[in-house]
């Protein structure tokens, strides 16, 4: 188990994906925190203009959508806004800002960009490639980029957009750039997809399909990370203890409702184990993280998850 997580942190670029609602953003933040504790200069990337991670670290306003913002020692955040990345790309390509403005202010161009939103995924990957290749002196600018990627379906579209461009465009700078991005995406030493799953049927099945689809696209995935695994304090022993009582002491719910709830919880735990087993058999599980109550939308919760990731990544 530990080698999987340690191996993951040796990559340069991690895409955290999975079915909607599995906790991708939380896991992105927790892995980032763990990596920064281990001394890796880490950049967390969210792919939209409404990032959530800075809020988790107590920042109410987003300071910048162009430059990475420091969250902790060794830990930075970037909201990768496609419109901004497109302008930066054009500025690099065309060199003259007034020409870039001319292009981006053209109403036809604006409408084309609206009508064919596929460019957003391409520019997102392009920006990630740019971040990955940047260096300071002899060392890379970032040791590790962790991307809070879109959910499974859109994620697959995102990952394979260089392939689509290469099939469509036969020459020119766009083709060269798409080829560079594709070689980063296909390099198992640098890039890995991390599928996050919940211990339940739909997300378990989607995870297995996702990993199969990634293989078909020559993309490296590590074993699934199981999130929100019930640390059921509910156990058969508690149920047995309840059965010994004639009535419940004052201050506690009545025996029947406690019994019913405990049965529900045990039932859920059983189903969860079955679906965890399914994922483990099919594609493997690199790490199980507990469900935190209430939801881990505070730094304490994320610190707790990060500590577990760090333990799993450390040599035994």
């Amino acid at each position, binding site marked *: 188990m530990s080698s999987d997580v340690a191996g993951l942190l040796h990559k340069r670029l991690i895409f955290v994906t999975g*079915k*909607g*609602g*599995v906790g991708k953003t939380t896991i992105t933040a927790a892995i980032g925190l763990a990596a920064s504790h281990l001394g890796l200069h880490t950049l967390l990337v969210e792919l939209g203009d*409404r990032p959530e991670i800075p809020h988790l670290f107590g920042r109410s306003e987003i300071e910048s959508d162009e430059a990475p913002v420091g969250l902790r020692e060794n830990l930075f955040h970037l909201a990768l806004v496609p419109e901004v990345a497109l302008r930066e790309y054009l500025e690099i*390509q*065309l060199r003259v800002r007034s020409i870039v403005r*001319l292009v981006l202010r*053209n*109403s*036809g*161009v604006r*409408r*084309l960009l*609206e*009508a*064919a*939103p*596929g*460019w957003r*995924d391409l520019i997102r990957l392009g920006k990630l490639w740019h971040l990955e290749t940047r260096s300071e002196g002899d060392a890379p600018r970032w040791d590790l980029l962790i991307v809070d990627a*879109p*959910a499974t379906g859109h994620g697959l*579209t995102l990952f394979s*957009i260089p392939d*689509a461009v290469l*099939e*469509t*465009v*036969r*020459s*020119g*700078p*766009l*083709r060269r750039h798409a080829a560079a991005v594709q070689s980063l995406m296909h390099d198992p030493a640098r890039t890995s997809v991390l599928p996050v799953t919940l211990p339940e*049927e739909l997300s378990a099945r989607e995870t297995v399909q996702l990993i199969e689809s990634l293989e078909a696209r020559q993309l490296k995935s590590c074993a699934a990370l199981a999130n929100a695994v019930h640390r059921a*304090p*509910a*156990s058969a022993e*508690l149920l047995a*203890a309840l059965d*010994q*009582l004639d009535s419940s*002491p*004052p*201050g*506690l719910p009545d025996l029947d*409702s*406690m019994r019913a*709830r*405990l*049965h*529900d*919880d045990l*039932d859920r735990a059983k*189903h969860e184990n079955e679906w965890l087993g399914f994922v483990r058999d099919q594609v493997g599980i690199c790490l199980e993280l507990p469900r935190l*109550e*209430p*939801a881990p*939308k505070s730094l304490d919760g994320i610190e707790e998850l990060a500590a577990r990731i760090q333990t799993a990544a450390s040599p035994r």
Partner: protein
Amino acid sequence: MGISLEREILVVVGTGGVGKTTLSAALGLAALERKERVLVVTIDPAQRLADALGLDSLTHTPQRVCGPTPGGGALWAMMLDTKRTFDELVERYLRDPESRRGIVENPIFQNLTDAVSGSREYSAMEKLFELHASGDYDLIVLDTPPATHALDFLDAPRRLSGFLDSNLQKALLKPAVVVGRSGFRALRRGTDAVISIIRRITGLEFLQLISGFLVALEDLWKGLSQHADALHELLRSERGGFALVVQPNPVQAKRAAEFSSRLDAEGIRLDALLLNRMTAGFPGVKPTSEKTREDLCGAIAPQLPPHSPETATALSDGLCDWVDATLRRTEAEEQASLELQSALRLTPEQVCRVPRLSGELHSREALSALIPYLVKRNDRG
């Protein structure tokens, strides 16, 4: 409490993984008490839903699920295959083989259909229009595709039209045409300059491919836009309704305010908020005190083998911790529910609290267990 099932179309929206598909099916079953012919349209190909409805699999055309019931209602279900619908639309609207080839042989159609705004959304809208116009159903419950923004399916088709009217598009397709009127000439010069700049980066070929694809879609778009507009009107009127499914947690509550302004911009009122998978808690119970723990320990100890006080303490603490954890969860959920209700400016009657039911929903009976949480009491029977 509950959803008005008086509509002709009920659109169920929400982000991925919140249980839209299951609740859509349960709403279909619930509607049988009021309506005669009900159709549930889902985008999600989950086999589990087919199983729950007692079907081998969901198909691209409506299949009868059950009925007529004693009340006379019958339920149908179908799965909307958007890619296939889009292909059918291309076939139907583009009778001219050349423009059909223009689309089908375009590498973008093969690779990037999804990347062009609205192709799937158009398909969903068109299919819904068709099903409604057929008059075969009194109520259609539509389970929408999961989207980060739950309303994308409404406005994605509109974005395509903007480009089709633009100078850039015309210039890309007919670079050699000289436009006569002087006002146009100035515009064209600007556009030509822009095209030559973009060309340096993408190559002209790529621009023409994209443009060609969008233009080949123009006929299709013209055929569909009237339907899309009519459907839009219908959904805004009393005949259409929207239900939002969420899981009550703080993140969802934060997103709700944004969603609310989006609804306003579309001119849509939300009929109901369905809070799904709520924890069944212990109403009226307070977090456990030291005294309760000691009492419980005292009550458990006599039942255990003698001289095992540690076991009694462990069991008592275990039970009390479990009760407290359940209370914390229900409190957090309730807090998020209230935030959602106020952000969406709904009345308490418009909010349905649907509990997380034990076991999996793998039969019609299990789905039916959700009905009392979805429909108004005075609407039933």
